C-alpha cells in the first residue's frame, strides 16, 4: 500500500499527543489530518491510462471488447491491490508508442528493453518476461548450431527484429560469414507452414509463438536461439507518477514471481501452454491451491461412474489393511481419500474378502480398482496402471539365527516363502531360480518363517516390518535387500476403463510434496516407534554395540581397501611410466622406419629423374614441344618428390637421434661461396642480384655439410619468395659465435604467422605459394639442424612487404658436449 495510511496513523498519534498538551494546535493538526485523508483518497483512486495493442497471447482484445492477455491480467491484479483505476487505450503498436512519448498514456505494456528506447522512455526494473528467437527446422533436418545453417533455405518474417534487427538472423549469420538463402514471408504462421511443406529448411519465429503454435505444424524445434530481449513496462519520461508506478509494479512483480500460486505464474503457465484463460482465475476445489485441469470428457466420465469399487489386501500394512474394527487404514487409504475429494470421485472399498478373492474378482471386473499393487507381467493382462506413487524395497526376511546374507543369490538353495498373488511371487518365479513355497497371506508366510517351516521369506520391507512387530515375531530379522532398486506401487484399473487411469494420474500429480510427506510420516515413521520395556532397552543396547562393531569393522575394511587402492595407483603409475617409455621407443622406431623406407623410395625416383633427363636432352631422338613440356613436368615433379623425401630422411634421422655429426675445420667464407654457387641457377632465372658481406678470416670447427645445407635452404627460400630486388648474405663474429643472416627484398611475413614459421608442413598463404613450390619442411629442417646438430639457434625478422631476414647463430666451435652426445 502507499505511504499515506502510515502517514495518517502517525499524524493521528501525534494528534492525540498534541491534544493533551495544547488545544490550540489541535485545529492545525485537524487541518493536516483532513488534507492527509484527501491525499490518501486521491492516491488510492489513481487513474492510469495503459496502451494496448494486439499481440496474442501477450495482449489482445476479446469478442466483448475487453483487453486481456498475459500483460493485462497481471497488471490488473497489481492495479487491484493498489486500488488503481486502469483504462486501456487501444491502438496499433506505433500509435501506442507515440502516445507514450507524448505522455498521453501512463504505461505501455510489452516493450522490449533497448538502450535506444531507454533514452526515449522510462522502464521498470524487474523484467516481465524474456523473449527470444527460436529456430525451427523441418522434421528431416538436423540443426545443432548456427553453422549448420550454411547453404540452407531459411524462412523469416518480413520486418521482424529477429530478421532485420541489430541482432537479427541476417546480421548474425553475416557476422559468422555463413551464406544461406532467406525466404521472406508475411507472418510467423507462413514461416512454420513453409517448413511443414519443405519449402524451407529452417525458420525463425519468436519463442512464445513457437511454443504455442509449432504443434500445429510438422516441424521440429532446434536448440538454436538468439536475440534475447527483456520485455518490461515502459513509461513516459515526463510523467509525474511514473516513478511511483515503477516502484509499485516492481514490488508486486518481484513478489508474484516468487509465489508459485500467484496470478503472474498461473498466467505465464496458462498462456504459454495454450490453456483456456479461465484457469488462471479458477478457484481450486478442496485444498484451494491446486488446479486439476480435467478435460470435458473426463468430467463426463466421472459423472457417469458415481461409484467405483476397489479391493484391498486386508493385511498389506502399512499401505492398506483393515483394523480390528474392520475399517480401512493405511497410506493408500489417505491417497484414495485425497483423490476422492479433489476429483469428486467416489471410490469405495469392498470389504470382507481375502486378497486372493479380491484378485479374482478384479480379474472378472467385479472390482474396478486395486489402489496399491506392483506391476507384474500377469497383472498387465487385466489392468492398466497409474503412475507410481509409493516406492518400497523388496527384502529377504530370515530368522535371527540364520547366517549373514548379502543378497538373493545366498538363498537360492533354501526353501523360501512368499505371499500368493504378490509381485514378489512373480519376481521369484520369473527372475530367480527359486521355487517358492506359496502362502495365501503375508501373516502365514511370516509365521512359517518364524517357526522354521521355511528358511526365508521374500516380501515388501515395510509391510513385513509392520507385521513382524505386530505379531511380535522377535526371532525374525530383515536380512538383506533383494536389490538396490526400489519397487513401485500403483493404482491398477480394470483395463476397459482407461479414462480412470488418466483421471487418477491427474489426481496424483496434484498432490504436493508436503502432502505426500505427511502421509508417509503418519504411516511409516509413527508405526516404528517402539515401547520402552526393559527387554527392548537391552535389545537396543545390544543392537547399538553390534552396530558399533559393524561400523568399526567397516572402518577397518575401508582402510584395507584404501591401502589396496593406493597400491593399485602406484602400480598404475608404474605402468604409465613403462607405457611412456614404450611410446618413446615406438616413436624412435617410427623415425627409423621412415628413414629406411624413404631410402627405398629414392631408388625408383632416381630412375625416373635419370631417364626423363636423358630423353629431355634429346639423346634418344628429337622431341616435339608438347613432349618436351610434359616430360619436363614429370622430371620436375620427381625432383620435388625426391627433395621432400630427402628432407623427411634428415628430419626422421634427427628425431631418431641417428644423425652423425662430422665436425671439421673450414673457412666460413668458403661454405657461403659454395652455397651461393648452388643456388646460382635459381638466382639467374629470377633475375636477382646477390650481395655478400662475409669476413674471409673466420675459421670454424663444426659440421660443414649441415651448415651448408642450412644456408642453401635459407638462400633458396629467399630467392623463391623475392620477385625482384636482391638477396644479401651477411656474416659476423660475435664473441665465440657466428651469426649468418640472409636478407631478401621479398614479400615478407605477417606477425601472426611468425610463431608457426619453423613448424613442419607449415606453408604460409601467399600468391607465390604455388609458384615457389617447396615441401613445407625446409625451415623445420633448418631449425632441427641448427638447434640439434650445430648447437645454435635460428632467428627471423620480418615486416610484410618489406622483406625478411632469416638467420642462424651457432658456436664457432662445436661444443664437446654436443659432439659427445651425437
Amino acid at each position, binding site marked *: 500500500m502507499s505511504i499515506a495510511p502510515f502517514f495518517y496513523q502517525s499524524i493521528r498519534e501525534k494528534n492525540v499527543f498534541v491534544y493533551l498538551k495544547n488545544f490550540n494546535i489541535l485545529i492545525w493538526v485537524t487541518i493536516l489530518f483532513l488534507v492527509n485523508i484527501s491525499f490518501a483518497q486521491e492516491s488510492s483512486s489513481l487513474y492510469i491510462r495503459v496502451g494496448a495493442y494486439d499481440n496474442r497471447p501477450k495482449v489482445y482484445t476479446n469478442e466483448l471488447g475487453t483487453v486481456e492477455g498475459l500483460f493485462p491480467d497481471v497488471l490488473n491484479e497489481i492495479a487491484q491491490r493498489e486500488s488503481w483505476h486502469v483504462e486501456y487505450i487501444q491502438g496499433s503498436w506505433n500509435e501506442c508508442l507515440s502516445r507514450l512519448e507524448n505522455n498521453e498514456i501512463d504505461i505501455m505494456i510489452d516493450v522490449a528493453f533497448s538502450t535506444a528506447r531507454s533514452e526515449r522512455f522510462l522502464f521498470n526494473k524487474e523484467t516481465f518476461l524474456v523473449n527470444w528467437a527460436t529456430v525451427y527446422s523441418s522434421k528431416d533436418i538436423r540443426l545443432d548450431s548456427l553453422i549448420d545453417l550454411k547453404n540452407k533455405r531459411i524462412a523469416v518474417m518480413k520486418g521482424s527484429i529477429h530478421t532485420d534487427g541489430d541482432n537479427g538472423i541476417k546480421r548474425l549469420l553475416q557476422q559468422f560469414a555463413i551464406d544461406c538463402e532467406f525466404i521472406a514471408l508475411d507472418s510467423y504462421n507462413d514461416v512454420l507452414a513453409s517448413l511443414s511443406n519443405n519449402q524451407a529448411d529452417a525458420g525463425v519465429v519468436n519463442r512464445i509463438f513457437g511454443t504455442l503454435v509449432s504443434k500445429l505444424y510438422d516441424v521440429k524445434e532446434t536448440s538454436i536461439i538468439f536475440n534475447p530481449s527483456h520485455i518490461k513496462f515502459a513509461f513516459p519520461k515526463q510523467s509525474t507518477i511514473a516513478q511511483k508506478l515503477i516502484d509499485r509494479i516492481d514490488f508486486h512483480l518481484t513478489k508474484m514471481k516468487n509465489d508459485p500460486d500467484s496470478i503472474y505464474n498461473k498466467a505465464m503457465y496458462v498462456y504459454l501452454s495454450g490453456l483456456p484463460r479461465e484457469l488462471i482465475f479458477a478457484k481450486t476445489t478442496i485444498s484451494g491451491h491446486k488446479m486439476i485441469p480435467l478435460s470435458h470428457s473426463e468430467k463426463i466420465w466421472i459423472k457417469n461412474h458415481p461409484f467405483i469399487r476397489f479391493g484391498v489386501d486386508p493385511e498389506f500394512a502399512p499401505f492398506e489393511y483393515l483394523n480390528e474394527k474392520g475399517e480401512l487404514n493405511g497410506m493408500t487409504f489417505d491417497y484414495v481419500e485425497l483423490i476422492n475429494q479433489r476429483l469428486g470421485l467416489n471410490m469405495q472399498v469392498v470389504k470382507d474378502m481375502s486378497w486372493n478373492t479380491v484378485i479374482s474378482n478384479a480379474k472378472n471386473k467385479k472390482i474396478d480398482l486395486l489402489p496399491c499393487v506392483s506391476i507384474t507381467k500377469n497383472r498387465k493382462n487385466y489392468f492398466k496402471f497409474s503412475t507410481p506413487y509409493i516406492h518400497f524395497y523388496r527384502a529377504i526376511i530370515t530368522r535371527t539365527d540364520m547366517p549373514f546374507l548379502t543378497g538373493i543369490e545366498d538363498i537360492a538353495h533354501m526353501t523360501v516363502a512368499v505371499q500368493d498373488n504378490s509381485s514378489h511371487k512373480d519376481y521369484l518365479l520369473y527372475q530367480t531360480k527359486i521355487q517358492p513355497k506359496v502362502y495365501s497371506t503375508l501373516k502365514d508366510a511370516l509365521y512359517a518363517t518364524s517357526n522354521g517351516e521355511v528358511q526365508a521369506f521374500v516380501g515388501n520391507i515395510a509391510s513385513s516390518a509392520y507385521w513382524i512387530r505386530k505379531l511380535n515375531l522377535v526371532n525374525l530379522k530383515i536380512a538383506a535387500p533383494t536389490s538396490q532398486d526400489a519397487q513401485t506401487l500403483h493404482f491398477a484399473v480394470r483395463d476397459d476403463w482407461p479414462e480412470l487411469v488418466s483421471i487418477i494420474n491427474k489426481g496424483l500429480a496434484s498432490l504436493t510434496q508436503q502432502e505426500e510427506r505427511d502421509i508417509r510420516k503418519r504411516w511409516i515413521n509413527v508405526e516404528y516407534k517402539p515401547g520402552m520395556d526393559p527387554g527392548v532397552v537391552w535389545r537396543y543396547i545390544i543392537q547399538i554395540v553390534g552396530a558399533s562393531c559393524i561400523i568399526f569393522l567397516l572402518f577397518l575394511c575401508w582402510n584395507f581397501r584404501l591401502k589396496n587402492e593406493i597400491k593399485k595407483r602406484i602400480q598404475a603409475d608404474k605402468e604409465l611410466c613403462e607405457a611412456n617409455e614404450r611410446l618413446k621407443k615406438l616413436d624412435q622406431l617410427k623415425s627409423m622406419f621412415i*628413414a629406411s623406407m624413404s*631410402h627405398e623410395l*629414392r631408388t625408383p625416383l*632416381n630412375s625416373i*629423374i635419370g631417364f626423363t633427363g*636423358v630423353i629431355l*636432352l634429346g639423346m634418344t631422338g628429337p622431341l616435339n614441344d608438347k613432349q618436351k613440356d610434359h616430360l619436363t613436368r614429370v622430371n620436375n615433379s620427381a625432383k620435388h618428390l625426391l627433395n621432400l623425401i630427402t628432407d623427411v*630422411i634428415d628430419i626422421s634421422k634427427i628425431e631418431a637421434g641417428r644423425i652423425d655429426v662430422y665436425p671439421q675445420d673450414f673457412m666460413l667464407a668458403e661454405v657461403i661461396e659454395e652455397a651461393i654457387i648452388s643456388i646460382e641457377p635459381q638466382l639467374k632465372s629470377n633475375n636477382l642480384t646477390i650481395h655478400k658481406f662475409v669476413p674471409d678470416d673466420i675459421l670454424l670447427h663444426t659440421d660443414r*655439410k649441415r651448415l651448408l645445407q642450412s644456408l642453401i635452404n635459407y638462400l633458396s627460400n629467399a630467392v623463391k619468395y623475392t620477385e625482384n630486388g636482391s638477396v644479401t648474405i651477411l656474416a659476423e663474429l660475435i664473441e665465440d659465435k657466428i651469426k649468418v643472416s640472409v636478407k631478401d627484398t621479398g614479400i615478407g611475413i605477417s606477425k601472426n604467422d611468425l610463431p608457426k614459421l619453423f613448424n613442419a608442413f607449415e606453408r604460409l598463404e601467399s600468391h607465390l605459394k604455388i609458384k615457389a613450390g617447396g615441401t613445407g619442411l625446409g625451415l623445420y629442417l633448418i631449425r632441427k639442424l641448427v638447434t640439434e646438430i650445430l648447437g645454435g639457434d635460428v632467428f627471423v625478422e620480418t615486416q610484410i612487404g618489406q622483406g625478411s631476414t632469416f638467420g642462424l647463430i651457432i658456436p664457432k666451435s662445436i661444443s664437446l658436449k654436443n659432439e659427445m652426445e651425437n
Partner: protein
Amino acid sequence: MKNVLVIEDNENNMELITFILEANNYGTIRAETGQQGIAMAIHDRPDFILLDIQLPDIMGTDVLMAIRNNKSCDKIPIIAITSYAMAGDREKLLNAGCDGYIEKPIDPMIVMDQIENVIQSRSVL
C-alpha cells in the same frame, strides 16, 4: 674408344649409365655384383670404373680395396656412385682410394662433365 666398367646391381641404373656413356662414345662392360666386378676389372682392364657402393654381395668399399690391392688393376681410376642417405660413407670412400664420386640422382646433363673432370685430374696426377 675408351672402355668403362660399370658395377651396378640395379638394372634401371645400369641401363641409364651405360646409355649415357655409350651416347658419349664410351664402350661399356657391365657387372651386376661386386665379385663379378672385381673379376672383370682384373680381366678386362677398363679405362675407368663406375662403382655403385651399395651392392648385393659385398660392400662397395670392399670392392674398392680389392681392386686397389691387385697389382694388375690398381691404377684404374674409380668413381663411386653414392646415395645421399649414405652421408658418412663418402669420406670413407675417398680415404679408401676412390678418385671421385657422383651423387644420385644421376643428372644426364652434367654426369659426363663430372666423370671427365675426375679422369682429367687423375691423369694430371
